[in-house]
């Protein structure tokens, strides 16, 4: 135990190791947070969910924090509703079971661009007589624009941009633009100031009620933006972290341990076993790794566990075996191994208690530096369309982005966000791995 503590302290002397550990620490925290706040089944449900889950989000919106970096502010999306009190609502009962319901929302609009869309989601309670609403829009410069009057069924959705009557009334194709534009501007720029949406509703029965939800789709949304299906990208980015780490660590660990054991067995028992292992390895090295994975993914199953299993299987008989074998061959001739034979140690004891522990300090840096390779592998498979179909992973995000022509459309955030995370993971493990190598491999110590 003390030896471990000493090594750890030694590790902290290398700035690269500290940086690597910091990055990995952050990734681990994100993973823990993701797993704790969003249980697995929930994550899958959200990811596969469609309109009903994500309806509130704009499509193709970039992250909200982009406004920090540009002088031209883009409009950020928001959602307010009477149900949670973010939109004001007053109910005034009238005569004969009627009631007047006034709902309004004022907001300050400072963006330099126009929103994508505005939507009103109405829910109402009634038996036979539909409630009725009248919607008015007030601009900062005092213009009151009547929007529409309509009856509200149990669930009614009103999209401002799709109202043809409104288009005709305002004499425009782009309703949203007209509602927000400074009338004096040409080309149109938004008028900044306080806007007010007023909804005056009437109900005709006792117990009848109207609730409204007002959604403004800006061009920016949230921490990570949205994709084609309006899914908040923070979900796959967050949840993809533990998946990536798990895949990388398990693959690296599984491969390293099994490779080491097989190399040790081959070296110790020598003869035909060693020859067999060597030939299998050589054949395996010639086989195209990625192509086989693609075949498995296409013809058999794309489940992440199957891909993990096949990856490990193909990697065990890889170039690593040759390296370990070389070190084991050297160790086998050690004097202390000879001493162990002289006091009667059995073969299995020598392999597991003498050869393999000798190897572990050499194994650890190798292990750490191969983790990113496996993380990238999983992402590559996803980009090729072979990712796990249900899990939200980084690779899947890139896959969706490419499928939808994100770069062509200028939606750089969609590709950059998962790419940056992948690179960070690689960087973190690489930094840590190289520092570990310098500590544990004494020949490099002088550098």
């Amino acid at each position: 135990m003390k030896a471990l503590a000493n090594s750890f302290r030694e590790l902290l002397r290398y700035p690269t190791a500290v940086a690597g550990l910091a990055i990995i620490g952050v990734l681990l925290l994100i993973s823990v947070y993701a797993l704790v706040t969003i249980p697995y089944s929930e994550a899958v449900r959200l990811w596969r969910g469609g309109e009903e889950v994500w309806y509130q989000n704009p499509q193709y919106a970039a992250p909200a924090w982009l406004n920090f970096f540009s002088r031209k502010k883009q409009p950020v999306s928001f959602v307010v509703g009477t149900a949670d009190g973010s939109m004001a609502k007053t109910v005034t009962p009238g005569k004969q079971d009627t009631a007047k319901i006034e709902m309004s929302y004022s907001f300050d609009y400072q963006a330099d661009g126009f929103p994508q869309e505005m939507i009103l989601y109405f829910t109402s309670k009634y038996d036979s007589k539909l409630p009725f609403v009248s919607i008015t829009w007030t601009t900062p410069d005092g213009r009151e624009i009547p929007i529409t009057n309509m009856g509200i069924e149990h669930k009614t959705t009103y999209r401002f941009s799709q109202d043809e009557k409104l288009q005709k009334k305002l004499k425009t194709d782009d309703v949203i633009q007209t509602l927000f534009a400074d009338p004096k501007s040409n080309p149109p720029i938004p008028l900044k100031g306080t806007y007010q949406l007023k909804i005056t509703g009437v109900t005709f029965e006792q117990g009848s009620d109207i609730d409204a939800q007002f959604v403004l789709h800006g061009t920016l949304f949230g921490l990570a933006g949205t994709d084609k299906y309006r899914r908040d990208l923070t979900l796959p980015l967050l949840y993809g972290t533990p998946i990536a780490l798990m895949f990388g660590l398990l693959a690296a660990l599984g491969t390293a341990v099994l490779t080491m054991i097989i190399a040790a067995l081959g070296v110790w028992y020598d003869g035909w076993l060693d020859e067999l292992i060597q030939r299998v390895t050589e054949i395996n090295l010639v086989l195209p790794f990625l192509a086989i994975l693609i075949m498995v993914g296409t013809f058999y199953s794309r489940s992440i566990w199957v891909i993990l299993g096949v990856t490990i299987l193909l990697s065990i008989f890889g170039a690593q075996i040759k390296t370990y074998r070389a070190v084991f061959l050297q160790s086998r001739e050690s004097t202390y191994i000879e001493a162990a034979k002289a006091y009667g140690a059995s073969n299995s004891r020598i392999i597991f208690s003498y050869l393999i522990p000798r190897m572990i300090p050499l194994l650890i840096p190798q292990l750490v530096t191969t983790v990113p390779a496996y993380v990238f592998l999983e992402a590559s498979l996803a980009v090729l369309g072979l990712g796990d179909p249900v899990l939200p992973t980084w690779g899947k995000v890139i896959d969706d982005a490419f499928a939808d022509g994100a770069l062509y459309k200028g939606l750089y955030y969609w590709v950059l966000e998962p790419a940056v995370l992948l690179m960070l993971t690689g960087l973190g493990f690489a930094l840590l791995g190289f520092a570990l190598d310098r500590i544990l491999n004494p020949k490099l110590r002088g550098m």
Partner: protein
Amino acid sequence: MAFEADVAVTVETGDRRNETLLAIENLRVWFELRRWGFGRAGYVRAVDNVSFVVHYGEAIAVVGESGCGKSSLMKTLLGLYRPTEGRITFEDKDLSQLGADGMRWYHSQVGYVQQDPFGALAPFMTVERILEEPMIIGKVNDKEERLRRIRKVMEEVKMTPVEDFLGKFPHMLSGGQQQRVVIARAMIMEPRFLVADEPVSMLDASVRVEILKLLRGLQDKHHLSVIYITHDLSTVSYFSERIFVMYAGQIIEKARVERLLNNPLHPYTLALLNGTSVPDAKNAETFKEVPPGEPPSLVKPPTGCRFHPRCPKRIDGLCDVKEPPEFEPEPGHQVLCWLYQ
């Protein structure tokens, strides 16, 4: 096989100084040279027809240069190599007849002290663990008993206070301390005899004497037989009773140490003695006489006496044709040389 009081042992082995502990008869250890694919390239005749006995409590030095086969002989005695021919009898048991259990017992009866003290200790094990290993393998299952033995043996090799050392790793110890641990490990199963392969050649001059004295002390106390392999003749008179000289896989001379030093019979032995230096300033003024050439290959040794190509006293027609049998010109002093026909 727990030992009770040392007293009983003393009485037992003290009386047995003339009894044979280990008998080697016509031992040959040949290694096959592998050839790529098929066919044999010959044999390395590392040990070629060696016979001797070791008595209880006796120390024998086996002296020879590198390539003479002494390492192979030693490893065969340790049970690491199987003899190609010949018989090894230990306490009246023929080693080739012992099964796996029997060999485990034999391994516990022989202690091995190696040349490189650092290499002989597993670098990732503490001293305590290193000392426990032979006991675990030898089925000493009681942890208390193991600790007791560790403590006892550490005190014997004078590594006290014991607790200070048990938790240390080999690289934290000095060369002398490492070698003490190696000796302790060799002693921990209370063996009958020790095989020491150049036990001090990798230690400093001032530490060597300490370790050799320690070995001698242990040998006296426990009536151990010791086979002490070395190429440094100057130490043999301090630490052994008999000496065997090996050359090209054969033991060419066997004698008590005083007899050999005062009356070396084989020309090779004489050359070895002349080649050994004593600290004397006059050495710088004279050249040493060294037999020309080098020790022969063990694959194709010379015909007849193996030393004949380099021997100044060679008898042509005899030494290069027939292998000399063992002669005994004086009691207890055997030699493989035609000069003593």
